[in-house]
C-alpha cells in the first residue's frame, strides 16, 4: 500500500463516478454518482495526509513542534469538511428531486429542458 496505489484506486473511483454523473438520465443516479466522486476525493486527501510529509518537517535543521506535526492531519480535516458539504448537497439535491417529481411526474434530467432556450 503506497501513495501511488491509493491514488490509483481513488482515480478509478472518481472516473467511474464521473461516468455515472454524465451518462445517467435519472436524477437520483446522478446524485449517487456524485457521492462516489466525493468518496474518491476523500480517499485521495487522506492518502496524501498519511503518506506525505507536511511542510516545516522537511527543512534542515528540523524543528519538530506540535504544530508542524499536526499539519500532517490537514488532509483529514479537509475530508471532514467535504463529508459535511456532501451531506448538505445530498439533502438539498434529493429535496429538489422530490419537488421536480411532484410537479413533473418525472426525474429524468433529459426531460427537464425548459432553460435550454
Amino acid at each position, binding site marked *: *500500500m503506497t501513495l501511488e496505489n491509493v491514488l490509483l*484506486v481513488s482515480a478509478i473511483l472518481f472516473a*467511474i463516478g464521473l461516468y455515472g454523473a*454524465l451518462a445517467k438520465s435519472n436524477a437520483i*443516479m446522478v446524485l449517487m454518482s456524485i457521492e462516489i466522486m466525493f468518496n474518491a476525493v476523500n480517499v485521495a486527501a487522506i492518502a496524501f495526509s498519511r503518506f506525505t510529509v507536511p511542510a516545516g518537517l522537511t527543512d534542515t535543521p528540523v524543528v*519538530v*513542534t506540535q504544530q508542524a506535526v499536526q499539519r500532517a492531519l490537514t488532509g483529514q480535516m479537509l475530508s471532514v469538511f467535504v463529508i459535511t458539504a456532501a451531506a448538505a448537497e445530498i439533502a438539498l439535491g434529493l429535496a429538489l428531486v422530490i419537488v421536480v417529481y411532484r410537479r413533473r411526474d418525472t426525474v429524468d434530467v433529459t426531460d427537464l429542458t425548459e432553460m435550454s432556450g
Partner: protein
Amino acid sequence: MLFQDIVFWVLSVLAIGASLGVVLVKDLFRAALLLVVVFIAVAGFFVLLSAEFLAVVQVLVYVGAISILIVFAIVLVRDIPGGGKDNHLKVVAATVAALLGALAIFVAFNSDFTDLDALEASNADVAAALTGTYNLDATEAVGDEFEDQYAVAPPEGEDGTQIGIFSNSTGAIGGLFIRDFVLPFEAVSVLLLAAMIGALALLRQREEDS
C-alpha cells in the same frame, strides 16, 4: 505490512466493483445498496490510512444518513419506467471519464511527492513523530514549548516517549477543530443550517400552492 496490502487490494476490488455496479445496474434500488458497499469499503480505506475518526464519521454520515435518504427518495419516486437508464451522451461520458481517470493516474505516478518512506531513511526522528513513537528530547524542540503553546501536551507512551500523530489522530483532530480550523468549522455549521432550512422550504412550497 503484507496483511495491510492484502486488505488494501481486497477493499480496492470491492470498492471499484461495487461502484461499477452502481453505474451499470439497471435497478435503482440495487444501485443504492451497492452504493452502501462502496461507502463501507471507503471506510475500510480510512482505517488502513490511520484515519479512524473519519472511518467512524464515514459510517455514521454516509452509511447511516445519506444512503437512507437516497433509499427514501427512490421509494418516493420509484414508479418511473427504466430506473437507471443511460442518456444519449453515454459514449462521450465514457470517453471523458476514461481520459480524466488516465490523466489522474499519470499525474499520480509521475509526480515527485515528499514521501514518508524517503523521510524515514533521511530523518528517522521526524518520521517517527508522524507514524510511531518519538522522543522529543532527541530533536531540537523542548517539551516546555509545547506546554506554553497548547493546553494539552501530546500523549506519552508507556516508556515515556511521545506517541506519533497518526496513533492519536482523533484527539489531534478535535484540537484542530477548536484552534486552527475554527472559522471553517463555523462556516460549515452555517452551511448545514442553510441546507436544512432550504430543504424544508423547498418541500413546503408545493403544499401551499395546491
